[in-house]
């Protein structure tokens, strides 16, 4: 089956308390490349294997957290179709068009608020400025990489109240599938949903909790468990705030480490996981096994990991 509709998470826009400290973190520690700055003072970055112009946007603000996440769709026709469905649905609120060019090298974007309070965007065009190794007889990785050097921005985990509404919007309107979920209590209330629009175990995940529009982490993809261990070395070498890891998740099977940017926004770098196909049954975790579901090795819940958000 060809991948159609929503293709991938295309960008995440983060608020930071000090722009230059943040740029230093995302370039020297994480290992993204700065590709542009605009008149508003925003900084645009990308990972080495990403073809499109940018995938991470940093903006200085007086609060940390996420402004919005953007989703690349396969065509203008898909964009128009999905926008019509979102406009007709009570699940999408505060709908608005953002003009082409508001992000550099990017076409028109449609922004809307989902039931958990997060702003999401759809767009169909972003200039392909190319990955670092090119597309003609490429080497497997480029020279001059810095820091952890993930190949791309991969997903976000977000916290909000109306999980049911957000899952319905992503599955019924945007065509995502539920790869994994956590259910709690005798009523098997869904408390976490891992949603995929591609071949990945998750392109975005949500956890049910009472506050709207909270950001848990933005995640970047590494090539191996060894690169996750090297990321752990870099976290100590660069005196970065460690959250936890390296370890493995039961959910999604990812090999992972979590840390914070200088404004307290959580980052993950991870490797592994599995390939998801549309006929794969949903994996369900029950709350009595939540320890190993989240951290497979020490099998304990970690309050800082679960409750620290921006």
């Amino acid at each position, binding site marked *: 089956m060809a991948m159609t509709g929503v293709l991938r998470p295309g960008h995440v826009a983060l608020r930071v308390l000090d722009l230059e400290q943040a740029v230093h973190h995302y370039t020297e520690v994480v290992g993204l490349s700065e590709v542009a700055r605009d008149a508003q003072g925003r900084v645009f970055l990308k990972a080495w294997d990403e073809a499109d112009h940018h995938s991470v946007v940093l903006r200085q603000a007086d*609060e940390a*957290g996420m402004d919005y996440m953007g989703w690349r769709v396969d065509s203008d026709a898909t964009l128009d179709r999905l926008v019509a469905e979102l406009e007709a649905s009570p699940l999408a609120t505060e709908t608005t068009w953002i003009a082409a060019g508001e992000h550099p090298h990017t076409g028109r974007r449609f922004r809307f608020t989902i039931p958990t309070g997060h702003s999401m965007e759809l767009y169909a065009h972003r200039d392909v400025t190319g990955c670092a190794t090119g597309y003609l007889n490429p080497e497997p990785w480029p020279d001059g990489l810095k820091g952890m050097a993930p190949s791309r921005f991969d997903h976000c985990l977000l*916290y909000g109240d109306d999980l049911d509404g957000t899952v319905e919007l992503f599955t019924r309107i945007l065509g995502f599938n539920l790869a994994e979920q956590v259910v709690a*209590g005798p009523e098997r209330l869904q408390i976490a949903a891992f949603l995929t629009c591609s071949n990945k175990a998750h392109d975005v995940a949500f956890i049910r*909790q009472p506050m709207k529009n909270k950001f848990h982490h933005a995640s970047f993809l590494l090539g191996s468990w060894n690169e996750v261990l090297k990321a752990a070395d870099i976290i100590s070498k660069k005196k970065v705030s460690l959250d936890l890891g390296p370890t493995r998740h039961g959910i999604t099977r990812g090999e992972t480490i979590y840390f914070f940017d200088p404004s307290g926004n959580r980052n993950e770098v991870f490797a592994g996981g599995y390939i998801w196909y549309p006929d794969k049954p949903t994996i369900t975790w029950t*709350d009595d096994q939540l320890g190993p579901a989240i951290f497979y090795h020490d099998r304990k819940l970690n309050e800082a990991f679960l409750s620290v958000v*921006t």
Partner: protein
Amino acid sequence: MSIRIHIENCDDSFPCPEGSNVLRAMECLGRRGIPVGCRGGGCGVCKVRVLAGEYRNETISRACVSVEEEAEGYSLACKLIPEGDLRLRVIGKMARSFDATRGGFHFYGTPSAASHRS
């Protein structure tokens, strides 16, 4: 002579090297008393109120400490640089975020600017 940080809630104190923030000083000594979150001024878990002493604050997310609160002595321990001995009250707490006996996640959230104004 090193600076001493006194935490009123647990009637405990620890030294803080000059120029260090309070949370880092506590963590380096393996001490407890102030909850540790992002260490970047963003999450609000380490929120404290300075009761006495001289200090300066580095940049703190306004989602955690408002301008008015900062003027009243509220701060985040990860961004609080003492310039002499300090007496603190811990305001922030690590939420007990998951309770299987209560059927799931129960986030109390980070202490908001409004919720801890007395």
